[in-house]
């Protein structure tokens, strides 16, 4: 396994005892944990692509948890964020969720609740990462196609027959068949429906993707 794929729970809290005790708790269930007293140290230290999640105390001197959260994208950090708030800090928690935190947890908290939150965030990170990788691979494959192959692929996924494609591109049917086989091979598509899904990923089948999304929301 790539070392970056082994998730790390990052803890940013200005209270030394809080971060040390969180590390103690998280490590007791075998979670790799790294702690920081200042948000800037975390931002400086984070290696892009490292899997994991981020536990942020909402109130810190210097840079508050909410501020850090907003700064993550510009640092290319897409980790799920769990915000830790003091008792009764509901407005802060609401703001944190608006900025895209996956969860918030009130201090002092039940350890099982925290661990569940962390596991959930790590799961979220994992699937986000898998999805991201899958998309990247499909895009890379698509980029390896020649111009002509892309044209053929666009028409294939619109459901045109080889003959219709040949007419549209004013080439022989035989040529279309060769290109088509090449496309299937290069895209590593097992079937036409496979190829259609990939076409949606790279965005050459916008109408289909939108129609499907609509169908899903109306379900």
């Amino acid at each position: 396994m790539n070392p970056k794929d082994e998730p790390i729970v990052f803890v940013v809290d200005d209270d030394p005892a809080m971060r040390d005790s969180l590390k103690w708790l998280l490590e007791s269930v075998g979670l790799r944990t790294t702690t920081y007293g200042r948000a800037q140290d975390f931002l400086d230290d984070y290696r892009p692509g490292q899997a994991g999640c981020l536990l942020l105390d909402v109130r810190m001197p210097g840079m508050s948890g909410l501020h850090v959260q907003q700064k993550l994208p510009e640092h290319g950090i897409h980790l799920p964020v769990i915000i830790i708030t003091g008792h009764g800090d509901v407005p802060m928690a609401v703001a944190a969720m608006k900025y895209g935190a996956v969860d918030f947890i009130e201090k002092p908290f039940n350890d099982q609740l925290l661990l569940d939150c962390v596991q959930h965030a790590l799961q979220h990170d994992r699937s986000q990462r898998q999805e991201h990788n899958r998309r990247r691979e499909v895009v890379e494959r698509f980029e390896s196609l020649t111009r002509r192959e892309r044209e053929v692929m666009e028409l294939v996924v619109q459901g045109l027959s080889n003959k219709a494609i040949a007419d549209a591109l004013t080439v022989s049917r035989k040529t279309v068949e060769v290109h088509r086989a090449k496309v299937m091979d290069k895209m590593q598509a097992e079937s036409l429906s496979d190829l259609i899904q990939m076409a949606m990923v790279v965005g050459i089948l916008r109408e289909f993707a939108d129609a499907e999304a609509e169908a899903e929301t109306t379900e």
Partner: protein
Amino acid sequence: MENVSESYETRHHQTLEALTRLQRAAARLPASTRQKLAVALAQLQLTLQALEEPATRQDRESLYRFHDEQLELTRQGTLSEMIRVLGHELNQPLAAIVNYARGTVRRLEAGSPPETVREGLSRIAQQADRAGEIIKRLRGFVRKGEFQRAPLDIRELIQEMVQFSRPEARRARVEVEVRLDDHLPRVMGDKVQIEQVILNLLRNAIEACHHQDTRQVTLRTRQPDSQRLVVEVVDTGHGLPPGDPEQLFTQFYTTKPKGLGLGLGISRSIIEAHGGQLWAEPHSDGGACFAFTLPIAQEKRR
């Protein structure tokens, strides 16, 4: 109409007596009214003082006593606020204890060696101590102490007050830095009163940083000679208001929207009663520096 033949001393004495009676009566009033009255009385007292500097030792003592009492009222008024702040602060060690304890239980269940358990327990004990310290500080605030002078560890006092104002600093997103000399001599003073002065300056400094880009408060000490220790509270706040810095110390002068304008005047009285000085000066970085001196305790060498 006042009798012009009456000497100033007589009038002064009568007024002081009236004030004392008022204060006694005030003790029976509800806290909020009492505080308003205290403010009014302070103004009266200050006017009196302005009329003529209290020449006699008795007058001066009476003035200090008044300030002490006023301080006590302020202390009671902010007690609920303090309990709230301390409650918040207690949450930290308690949450840490829970984490350590649960983590230790999980390690035990997973068959970790006894050293791990010992480590966990010792960290729990540490945090319990910390919680105890916070409670001790609360007691120190509530205790109505006599004006006592004893050798004080100023380092400890400063650190306690910084700790106490931490939630406030966190809220205001102000970084509080403590830069103290390694070998600080002890100073002579009343612990509760000196704490009050440090806290007052610290809170002012934190508040002054509001809306500033850089929000930093630094507490430091220096020792200009063998007699005195200087404590400085430096902030990167909005700086001193234009004009004479001395106006800051007059009662009811305030730049804060909700300030009473009493804190600095009271703080100065306390420090002066200790034989020290308290003053303000602009800081080179644009903020302000509030400094006070305290006499160094002359201790026998051991």
